[in-house]
């Protein structure tokens, strides 16, 4: 690790100003991605601004037909949240299957989506559930948020404060893990919310999460799992690495979509 300056922010404003006054500041959430990156010397921020002391970034609330999760809420907290488990059980299940228990105890939803790893789980949930990412100065629909490989719509220094998820009628996530890292080789979240069916795919493409219209059309309003399974996804442009060929990934997209549809019931 290169050396850096560390500060603990105690409010959102404090965090934003600390970051902006630093030469090259980075927010530190759970550290489950950032610290391994620093350990490998793949990043050299001048300052880390720790968000863990900002209490209004933590917690889950339900209002009307949506659930809002503070950006510093850990995967474990989302997984065990009664609100999430009752309103969007698919999201609780997804969070409960990210990484391992120790990662879930510290990793946060804000960190996960800010990082936008192409094999991460939350981006699929955000897109399929048509979530809104709330930052310190705007609201960004999930469809516009994830812009590419480790790329998001966030401006430098923009702080995610929360994510709002409309409560779906039905939803489920199916993940086929990479045998080594256990990130998604392919993960598909399917959801039916207020007359719209969405299927968001993570892991399969190098440019990150995407919606599959073929799958969505096949699923229809009833989330028809056998129709999803019958979809033949093109392997063009999908990831091809030592763990899975693009053809295998393409195949898994339909299979995982179909399994998610079955689970969504």
């Amino acid at each position, binding site marked *: 690790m290169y*050396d850096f300056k560390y500060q603990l922010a105690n409010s959102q404003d404090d965090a934003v100003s600390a970051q902006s006054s630093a030469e090259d500041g980075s927010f530190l959430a759970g550290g489950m991605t950032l610290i391994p990156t620093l350990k490998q010397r793949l990043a050299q921020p001048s300052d880390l601004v720790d968000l863990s002391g900002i209490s209004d970034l933590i917690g889950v609330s339900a209002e009307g037909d949506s659930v809002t999760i503070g950006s510093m809420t850990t995967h474990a907290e989302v997984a065990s949240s009664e609100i999430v488990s009752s309103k969007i059980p698919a999201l609780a299940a997804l969070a409960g299957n990210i990484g391992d228990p120790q990662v879930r105890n510290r990793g946060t939803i804000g960190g996960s989506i800010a990082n936008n790893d192409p094999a991460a789980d939350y981006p699929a949930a955000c897109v399929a559930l048509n979530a809104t990412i709330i930052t310190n100065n705007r609201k960004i629909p999930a469809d516009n948020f994830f812009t590419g490989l480790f790329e998001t719509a966030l401006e430098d220094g923009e702080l995610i404060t929360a994510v709002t998820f409309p409560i779906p009628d039905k939803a489920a996530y199916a993940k086929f893990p990479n045998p*080594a890292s256990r990130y998604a080789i392919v993960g598909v979240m399917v959801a039916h919310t207020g007359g719209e069916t969405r299927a968001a795919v993570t892991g399969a493409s190098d440019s990150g999460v995407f919606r599959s219209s073929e799958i969505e059309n096949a699923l229809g309003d009833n989330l028809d799992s056998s129709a999803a399974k019958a979809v033949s996804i093109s392997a063009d442009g999908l990831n091809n690495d*030592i*763990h899975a060929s693009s053809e*295998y990934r393409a195949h898994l997209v339909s299979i995982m979509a179909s399994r998610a549809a079955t689970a969504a019931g």
Partner: protein
Amino acid sequence: MTETNIGAPIKRVEDKRFLTGRGRYTDDLNQPNQLYACILRSPHAHANLKKVDVSQAKAAPGVIDIFTGSDMAADEVGSLPCGWQIHSKDGSPMHEPGHPPMAVTKVRHVGDQVAIVIAETKSQARDALDIIEVDYEVLPAAINMDEALSGKALVHDDVPNNMCFDWEIGDKEATENSFSDAHKVVSIELVNNRLIPNAMEPRAAVAQYDPSNGNYTLHTTTQNPHVIRLLMGAFVLQIPEHKLRIISHDVGGGFGSKIFHYAEEAILTWASAKVSQPIKWTAERSESFVTDAHGRDHETKAELALDKDGKFLGLRVSTKANIGAYLSTFGSSVPTYLYGTLLAGVYKTPAIYCEVKTVFTNTVPVDAYRGAGRPECTYLLERLVNKAAKETGIDPVEIRRINMIQPDQFPYQTPVALQYDVGDYPRAFETALKASDYEGFSSRRKSSEDNGKKRGIGISTYIEACGIAPSAVAGALGARAGLYESAQVRVHPTGSVTLYTGTHNHGQGHETTFAQIVSDTLGVSIDQVEVSHGDTGEVQFGMGTYGSRSLAVGGPAVLKACNKIIEKSKKIAAHILEASVDDIDFKDGVYSISGTDRELAFGEVSLAAYVPHNYPIEELEPGLDENAFYDPLNFSFPAGCHICEVEIDPETGEVEITDFTAVDDIGRVINPMIVEGQVQGGLAQGIGQALMEGCVYDNEGQLLTGSYMDYTMPRADNLPNLNVSTESVLGASNPLEVKGVGEVGSIGAPPAVINAILDALSSLGVEDISMPASPSKVWQAIHNAQ
């Protein structure tokens, strides 16, 4: 000997310190004034080192000094030696190119050592690495074996076609003849996948030089401290042994990868004298991936000749073995005498011929990893036997029964040098069939198929030769050292005992099993026995722990030393009791005169041995401390049968091991709890090889599986509970009648798993699959077959 402990599942003596965080692993140790080292490693697989400029880095904060290969060469530091000489078919000795601890003119694999930075803190050392300037002239690299054998890129300029040696074993002519007589010939081509051992403790070393007396002390993560002392002292650094102490207290797993004398040990020891301060180095896991010797990596073509009844007539094997960029300590023995000599397996194949071309490549050196040679052999044989079953239409169980060596055939001389001493292969085989409910398989298959899954069952038998080694035999086969083992039993005045063993405990439980032997032999309770190992300053000598040799070779040495104690102490007892030695009985730690009630306790005699008033000083020296060396008569031959059952999801290619049964003949069981643990651990590594683990290099020699993000390690949820039992025939090669258990799991498991997968998928037309059978590969195989 009274057997109260031997055979009992005694809880481990060593556990308490590990469970309370008080182990003493190398990285846990610190010395006063200690400095920290980081090592600059080549990012290229093959390059000329044009220039290494350390001037700027030397001026970095906290940096004490930086050394390169040229500095070591200037001090005439020697080459890291290889301990096993192999001769090619034509009688020429293997090529042994130099292996400098730090590269001098050329780097030969990603991870090769280029420079060492020594600084006040680890972070400072690491920071300085980034500012060393190296001018590499990148050369074409030889990565896969065919490419290497074409000789386009030479790893070592003086090794034509990168061929280290071209070895053979067996009777070529007899084997050719068996094929001309054959009713059927079955052939197979397969790869034994390259593995990265991944003991959980990364390697580490702390070297210390005392300028006041010229003594060196090296704490290092090794399985054999005396071997390191011998190799490093005599061949690399020219430090006489009385000036060099090697200590490895607790070691966090080895599996072979910590046998070898590694460059860092020599670099640190040498550098500690240069800076006259202790230096510590601990590998990052990413360094371990590119520097710990890898395992396996064979490509093989084999053919089996059968008669019309399915009897094996002959076996012909041609293997290419990757040895990596340099010859590691035992690298040359693994694809030869630990491989070709086992090709009879448990079968009566009368004619066998095997040739092995061993190839240098620009990859990490390849050496022994749990099983070493024997898993490669077993995988080949058991895949081939299954294929023969399929092609002849004989049931896989039946074809094994027909060909198995029978209990009345021992000693059994194989056509590939070894003579099996004792065994009962049908017994373990039939027991395993029962234990796995082989007969009930078809109904289990049916219920899987009802759920859209494919189910398969796979058998593997195996034999291994362990207990290295009968030294004369090992010498005849090319070992440059005999492999005796030593023990010293020191009885203290009050009757407690310290046992010094030359074997090394890094998880095998010697502190318990060896204490069990001492306790039963001398009749002292187990808590009165302390086992000391891992320190050349304490233990007289030893060849360490690998090749399942500790109990088979080290155990009898313990027994022998204990017997010497008994012999001497009986004389002391006789003197005190005023009786003739011949009349003294020793049992359960009590000396008595036969037929009388006159007796002495063990502690009374030991006290008399040290602080006597009344002692036969004219005939006998005081003290009760005996050494013994033991060399076995023969290898020992554990054998057994493993049966694996899998369920496959044909949609995703995921393989679930639903059941795994292992029945092993490991000779006498000293501690069944530890034996089960050893088998379970070996099975996990064998299953890992079959389903998950595989080292992948790209064409430029970059390791693509260089972390746990990409190298799949078996985890708890990948494995089922393991059904492990023993079906032992007592060993005949050593007085403890033990055979060895450390490697059986990793030897027997891989073909059982693959045979099960192929059984499951045969209805889909899949005929072959390579290891690791990852979900993507299984899916691809199904997809291709359709």
